[in-house]
């Protein structure tokens, strides 16, 4: 049994007079303790909505429907009432967001925001809490933590803010950390610092990490199992190395071909995916990626492609996948005459 088991999660936003939007459509994946799992995709693929749904952070509005299951250590997070969900949030599951400035309260000192978590979940007060908060800031590499505790978010640099956010997230030694584009707003050298810090936390404390990102470079550096999302569905799941070595879904192939590589020779043309996410097909009518797909065949349209499972936990959702490079489809054995 995995630590987090997401099964057939779907999120639909409906508005009067408009077609409902299926932001997440039957997403399933699992996260084991001490594992780094990635949700990868471009904007609008449903990766952030998935994480918000798991955390119960989607805004409560009339047209919102969340279906499926998200079982964390035996309890279905989606069925919890607000009170018990608040107990789990911050203690067992914590989240780091993309933009540290907008996820910190600008009028409250950093110290108070960190101790709030400690007070709520660990019952610490006064000096003990302040001491622990300083220790946490120190642990995530914020210099001069005692002084920082009294400062406000705007007095910290972007990298420091993200560190403060991570300090809050790890304050209760959560068993699962959800990081939604944690380094997208940061410069590369700061990004390297933060990624190194996250890796260290996973290694030292056995925390599971659900990493949501669009950056394939980040994925290559730290994720164990990768789920590639497109149009609200998981189109390919694989371990890190097999995914990069032999991607099977044409969308994964396209993504890898689109990224300019620092170590590639110059003058190599990029192979972009034609079109944009807008011209997608609704899944019930066929593969949502079909309008942009180079390997499109007639079978792609009509019904949604099934998830095909292969060896080693790999799976992809495609009727005409990329052949594995270096292997020819095994020749049919001739009957000996």
């Amino acid at each position, binding site marked *: 049994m995995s630590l987090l088991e997401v099964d057939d999660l779907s999120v639909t936003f409906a508005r009067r007079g408009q077609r409902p939007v299926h932001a997440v459509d039957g997403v399933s994946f699992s996260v084991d303790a001490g594992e780094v799992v990635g949700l990868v995709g471009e904007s609008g693929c449903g990766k952030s909505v998935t994480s918000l749904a798991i955390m119960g952070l989607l805004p409560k509005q009339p047209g919102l429907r969340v279906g499926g299951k998200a079982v964390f250590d035996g309890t279905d997070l989606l069925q919890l009432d607000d009170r018990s969900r608040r107990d789990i949030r911050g203690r067992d599951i914590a989240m780091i967001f993309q933009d540290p400035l907008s996820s910190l309260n600008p009028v409250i000192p950093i110290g108070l925001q960190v101790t709030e978590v400690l007070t709520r979940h660990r019952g610490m007060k006064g000096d003990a809490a302040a001491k622990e908060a300083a220790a946490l800031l120190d642990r995530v590499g914020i*210099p001069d933590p005692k002084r920082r505790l009294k400062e406000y978010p705007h007095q910290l640099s972007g990298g420091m803010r993200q560190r403060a956010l991570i300090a809050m997230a790890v304050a209760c030694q959560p068993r699962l950390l959800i990081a939604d584009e944690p380094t997208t707003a940061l*410069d590369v050298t700061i990004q390297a610092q933060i990624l190194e810090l996250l890796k260290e936390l996973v290694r030292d404390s056995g925390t599971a990490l659900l990493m949501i990102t669009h950056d394939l470079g980040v994925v*290559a550096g730290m994720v164990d199992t990768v789920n590639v999302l497109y149009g609200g569905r998981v189109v390919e799941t694989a371990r890190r190395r097999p995914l990069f070595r032999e991607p099977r879904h044409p969308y994964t192939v396209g993504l890898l071909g689109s990224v300019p590589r620092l170590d590639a020779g*110059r003058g190599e043309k990029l192979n972009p995916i034609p079109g944009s996410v807008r011209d997608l097909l609704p899944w019930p009518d066929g593969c949502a990626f079909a309008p942009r797909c180079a390997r499109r065949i007639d079978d792609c349209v009509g019904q949604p492609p099934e998830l095909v499972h292969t060896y080693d936990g790999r799976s992809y959702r495609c009727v005409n996948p990329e052949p594995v490079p270096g292997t020819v489809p095994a020749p049919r054995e001739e009957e000996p005459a």
Partner: protein
Amino acid sequence: MSDNDILVEVRDLKVHFPIKRGVLFDRVVGHVKAVDGVDLSIPRGKTYGLVGESGCGKSTLGRALLQLNPPTSGEVSFDGVELTTLPPGKLRTMRRRMQMIFQDPMSSLDPRQNVESILTEGLQTHGIGTDRTDRRRIIGETLDAVGLPRWALSRYPHEFSGGQRQRIGIARALVLGPELIVADEPVSALDVSIQAQVVNLLDELQDSLGLTYLVIAHDLAVVRHISDTVGVMYLGALVEEAPSDRLYTEPLHPYTRALMSAVPVPDPDVEDRRERILLAGDLPSPANPPSGCRFHTRCPWAQPTRCADERPALREIGASRVACHFAERIASGELRPHQVSVQIVRPEGEGESPGVVSAPSEPGSYV
């Protein structure tokens, strides 16, 4: 290379912004040295890439080059014409030959103008095309060049996707038939699959129209992909300039090395093998830059002599230009990196002099 091959030449360009304080009377209490002494030249038909982290002055440099921000001092010559002393009227006619592409197409296009009006405005200002049909023809050709359909003319920016909007921004720059295009973060607001489309488009346009580009971006992989020469900026100055192939294979400046090692590569085998040079701390404030070499406060190779008190000039080493006193000895492996303790970077106005921050923490740790 003969002199007339150079389209743009920048000499000792400085852009300083005053910091003002006071309730009734503004008094200048200091300057943010956004660009502080940059020399560079761009040959005609080539692409110069400018990289650096946020706050290093790369965008200001691009804008100062087009005289969108008046430079504090220095010279910018475009095709032999000195722009900094040009009267406004003449400058405006020169603008036809140098155009800009912005980062965020949504905020750089007027939401109330349709595409035709966006594209016609520049033509009218510069008096290109004899009448409406002639202008329509020019616009039509431009749309074809950037890969937008003709029906786009009557549409408004919000009706397009991000990638298409960026194409409109490119079309607006192209329609005047410029020679130089300054592209400030042209693809960073776009998704990867769309990013590649725009990068390829810029490449194709350069081939067919012989354009000269100055591409400003923080994404090293993108810049290296499209540029012939790459300049790396740190705190308002170039620290290294090299042909784009060499920059990755033989980075000479310690900052370039750190930057290169920090960029994630989408290949697990490479990622697992490579060694990261993690820089300690953040970028110091450009209002109060460190003395000597600006990078010495974060440099893992900083030496007790020269680095803290002598500002290195760009020197030619092979095909590159590097601003580091010890570049050769670092490249040969004679100098080894050492641990740098994180220095506290105070936000502006907290009055901590950068003099306290300094060279290596353990004096014995370097060779």
